C-alpha cells in the first residue's frame, strides 16, 4: 500500500499539492466533477486515494459530488470535493445543508474568470462572496486562501482541521494561477490532525444537537453507531426534530453563525510585513499577494513607508485584524482580481478610519509588481 | 381452539379515514356516528365476534391507530 504522507521535498503543481495535503489530513472519500482549473486534483486522487485505501468517486455533476460527500461524512468518512466557481454555484443549496447539519467537509474552489463559463483557463478572484453568501438564508463558513503550492498543501490540512473543529464547510480559495503553478513543496514527517469530536456519553444520554457551551459545536455521532442520529434539513432544536417556532429557529441560526463569526480572531491566519511604521497598507490574498509582496519590498527598498497584509483567512472576515494592521496608517490599497469585493469588507471593517483605494483587475491578467508599485506611488 | 381478535383503537391517532372499515373482509368495523373532540368519526369494532383476526386493518391503517390482539377461545 502507498503512503499517505510523502515526506520529503517535491516539485508540485498547486493542485497536486492540494491533493497530497488532503491525503495527509486523512481524506477517506473524494467526489468531484472535472472542471478547469481544478481537474488535476481529481486526477491525482483517482490514483492516490484508492492506493491508500480510500474511495474515489467521479460525480456525475457537482450536485452528485457534494451530496455524496455530505452523506459519506455521516457514514464516518473525511471528505473533500474540488471545483471552480461554476461548480460552487451548483453546490450552494448543499452548502447550506452542510451548514444546518454541521457536516465537516472541505471544498476547494480553484477560481477562474467568469461569470458563467467565462474564461475557463484564466485566473480570477471573483468568488469571494460566492462562498460566503451564495446559499439561501443565514449561516457561516470558513475560507482560506493559499498563495503557493506549499500553502495548497498546508492550508488544505488546516481546512480539514478547522472543518472538524467548527463542524462547518471549509473552503480552500485557490485561483487558477496558484492551482497550476509548480513550486517546491516540503512535506514534513508528521502532520497534526484535529480528530472528529465524537459523543462522550452513551446513546440514552446523548442530545444530538446540544452544543458545547464553550465551543458552540455539538458532538457528532455517525450512522450505525447506535445513536439514532437525526440529521435534519429542517430548522430544529436540540432534539433534532423539525420546528418552525421563532425561539428555536433564531437560537439555531444564531448559533450556526456565532460559532464561527465570534471566533474570527482565533481563525484569522495572515502574514504581515513592515506594518509597524507603515503610512500605506497594501492588502491582498492568493496569487495577487505574490505580486503585492514583491511590490511592497521594492517600494520599501526605495524608502516608501508601505506595509503589507496578506490575508490567508478570508472568512470569517478578520475585522479586528484589519483594524490592528492599519495602525497609524491612513491609506489602504486593496489589490484584487475582481471588480471589488475584498475592498468592501476592508472598508466596512475600517469604518472610515482610512482612505481605501481599490486596484481592480477583474480576471485573466494578474496584477504585476510594477503595476502595484505605480498604483501605490499614485495614491500614497 | 378458535382464534378471535380484540380490536384496540387509539382515538388520538385515528383520523376516521375509513380504509379499515372498507377493507375488513368480515365487516367487523364501523366509524362511530359521534364526533370526538378532534371532530373525527373514530373507528370501533361493531361486530367484534366476527374478527378472525386477519390483521388487514393493521396492515392498511395509515395512522398506526388500530391494533389487533389475538385471543384464543375455547
Amino acid at each position, binding site marked *: 500500500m502507498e503512503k499517505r504522507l510523502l515526506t520529503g521535498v517535491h516539485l508540485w503543481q498547486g493542485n497536486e499539492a492540494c491533493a497530497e495535503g488532503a491525503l495527509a489530513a486523512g481524506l477517506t*472519500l473524494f467526489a468531484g466533477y472535472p472542471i478547469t482549473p481544478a481537474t488535476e486534483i481529481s486526477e491525482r486522487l483517482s490514483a492516490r486515494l484508492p492506493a491508500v*485505501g480510500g474511495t474515489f468517486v467521479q460525480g456525475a455533476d457537482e450536485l452528485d459530488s457534494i*451530496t455524496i460527500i455530505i452523506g459519506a461524512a455521516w457514514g464516518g468518512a473525511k471528505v473533500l470535493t474540488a471545483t471552480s466557481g461554476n461548480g460552487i454555484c451548483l453546490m450552494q443549496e448543499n452548502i447550506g445543508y452542510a451548514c444546518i447539519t454541521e457536516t465537516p467537509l472541505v471544498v476547494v474552489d480553484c477560481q477562474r474568470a467568469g461569470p458563467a463559463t467565462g474564461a475557463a483557463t484564466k485566473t480570477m478572484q471573483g468568488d469571494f462572496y460566492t462562498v460566503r453568501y451564495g446559499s439561501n438564508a443565514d449561516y457561516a463558513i470558513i475560507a482560506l486562501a493559499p498563495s503557493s503550492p506549499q500553502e495548497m498543501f498546508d492550508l488544505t490540512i488546516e481546512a480539514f482541521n478547522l472543518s472538524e473543529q467548527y463542524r462547518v464547510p471549509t473552503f480552500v480559495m485557490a485561483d487558477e494561477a496558484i492551482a497550476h503553478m509548480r513550486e517546491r513543496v516540503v512535506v514534513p514527517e508528521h502532520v497534526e490532525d484535529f480528530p472528529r469530536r465524537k459523543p462522550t456519553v452513551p446513546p440514552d444520554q446523548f442530545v444530538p444537537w446540544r452544543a458545547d457551551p464553550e465551543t458552540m459545536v455539538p458532538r457528532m455521532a455517525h450512522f450505525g453507531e447506535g445513536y439514532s442520529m437525526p440529521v435534519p434539513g429542517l430548522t430544529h432544536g436540540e432534539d433534532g426534530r423539525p420546528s418552525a417556532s421563532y425561539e428555536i429557529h433564531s437560537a439555531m441560526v444564531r448559533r450556526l453563525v456565532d460559532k464561527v463569526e465570534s471566533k474570527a480572531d482565533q481563525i484569522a491566519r495572515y502574514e504581515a510585513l513592515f506594518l509597524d511604521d507603515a503610512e500605506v497598507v497594501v492588502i491582498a490574498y492568493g496569487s495577487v499577494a505574490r505580486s503585492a509582496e514583491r511590490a511592497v519590498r521594492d517600494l520599501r527598498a526605495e524608502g516608501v513607508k508601505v506595509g503589507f497584509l496578506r490575508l490567508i483567512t478570508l472568512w470569517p472576515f478578520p475585522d479586528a485584524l484589519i483594524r490592528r494592521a492599519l495602525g497609524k496608517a491612513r491609506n489602504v490599497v486593496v489589490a484584487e482580481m475582481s471588480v471589488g469585493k475584498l475592498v468592501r469588507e476592508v472598508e466596512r471593517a475600517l469604518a472610515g478610519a482610512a482612505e481605501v483605494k481599490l486596484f481592480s483587475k477583474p480576471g485573466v491578467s494578474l496584477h504585476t509588481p510594477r503595476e502595484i508599485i505605480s498604483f501605490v506611488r499614485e495614491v500614497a | 381452539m378458535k382464534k378471535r381478535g380484540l380490536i384496540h383503537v387509539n382515538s388520538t391517532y385515528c383520523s376516521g379515514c375509513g380504509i379499515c372499515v372498507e377493507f375488513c373482509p368480515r365487516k367487523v368495523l364501523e366509524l362511530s356516528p359521534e364526533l370526538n373532540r378532534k371532530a373525527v368519526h373514530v373507528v370501533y369494532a361493531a361486530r367484534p365476534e366476527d374478527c378472525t383476526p386477519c390483521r388487514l386493518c393493521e396492515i392498511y391503517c395509515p395512522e398506526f391507530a388500530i391494533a389487533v390482539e389475538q385471543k384464543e377461545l375455547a
Partner: protein
Amino acid sequence: MEAVQVKHPALEYYQTGSGGDPTIWCSGCGIGQVWHFTVRAMEELELDPDKVVWVGGSGCTGRMCTYWNHDLMHTLHGRPLGFATGIKLANPELTVICHMGDGETSAIGGNHLIQSARRNVDLVAICVNNFNYGMTGGQFSPATPLGGITKTSPGGHRVASFDLCELVTAAGATYVARWTTAHPRQSITAIKKAIQNQGFSYVEIVAQCPTHYGRNNRLGDGADMMKWQKDVSLRVDKAAGMSREELQGKIVIGEFVSIQRPEYGGILRSFWPEGEEGNNG
C-alpha cells in the same frame, strides 16, 4: 381516553415529537401505509434497526424518515439518492433506504436516479407515486397521467409522463417492482427483496393522495382511491405486448427486473491494493 393496551406494531419504530398525531399526513393518505410496509419488511428480515438508515428528501414522502426512531437523514429535494450513495460507500454495512415522492424521484431527482441505477449502488429506492406534488398543494409531476387535473394543469395534463420502472430498468437497476397501497403483502415482499438485493433496487408504490390528486380528479376518499388503484391495476404478464395508448389509465404492477451485476461499492473497493481493508467510517 383510556390508555391503549395493545399498540399498532409500527409504533415500535415510531419517533414521537416529529409533528402530528401521529404524523402530518392527511386522513386517508397512503404514505403512512408505505411507512408501515417498510418497517414490516425490515422486521420480517430481522434487520438490526441500528444499522438501517432512512433517507428522505422534501415533500410529504420526504417526511417519512423523520418518524423513524433510528438513524435518519432528511435531505434536500430530489437528492436522497446522492446522500445515500455517500452513506453506503462510507459504511457498506449499513442498509440505506430512501423514500422519495414521484416528483422528487423523476423531476429534480432525475439525474440522481439514473446515475444510481447505472452504478448499481446497493440502495433501496422506494418511490411513493401519488401522481402529484402533494406538499406544495397538488401540482403535476413527470408521473402525472394524461388528463390528470392538478393545480398547474387545471384543464387536464397533456404532456406524457415517465414510466419510471422502464426508466430505471433502462438505466441499469437490478431489482424493479411496482405495486400499490392496495397490495400490501406484495409491497412488503418487494421491499424485502429490494433490501436483500445487492444492488440498486427500485420499488414504486402507487399511493393515494385524497386531498389533492383525489379531490382534483373526483376519485373520492382514501378508501375509494385504493379501490380505484386495485381496479386499474394490471399484472405485468397481462400487460405484455400492450401499447402505451392501450395502457393509458392503467397501473402495471408486478416485478419487472430481478438480476445480478457488480455493485458500485464493491467495484470501487476493488481498486484497493491486494489485502487492503480500506479506511472509511
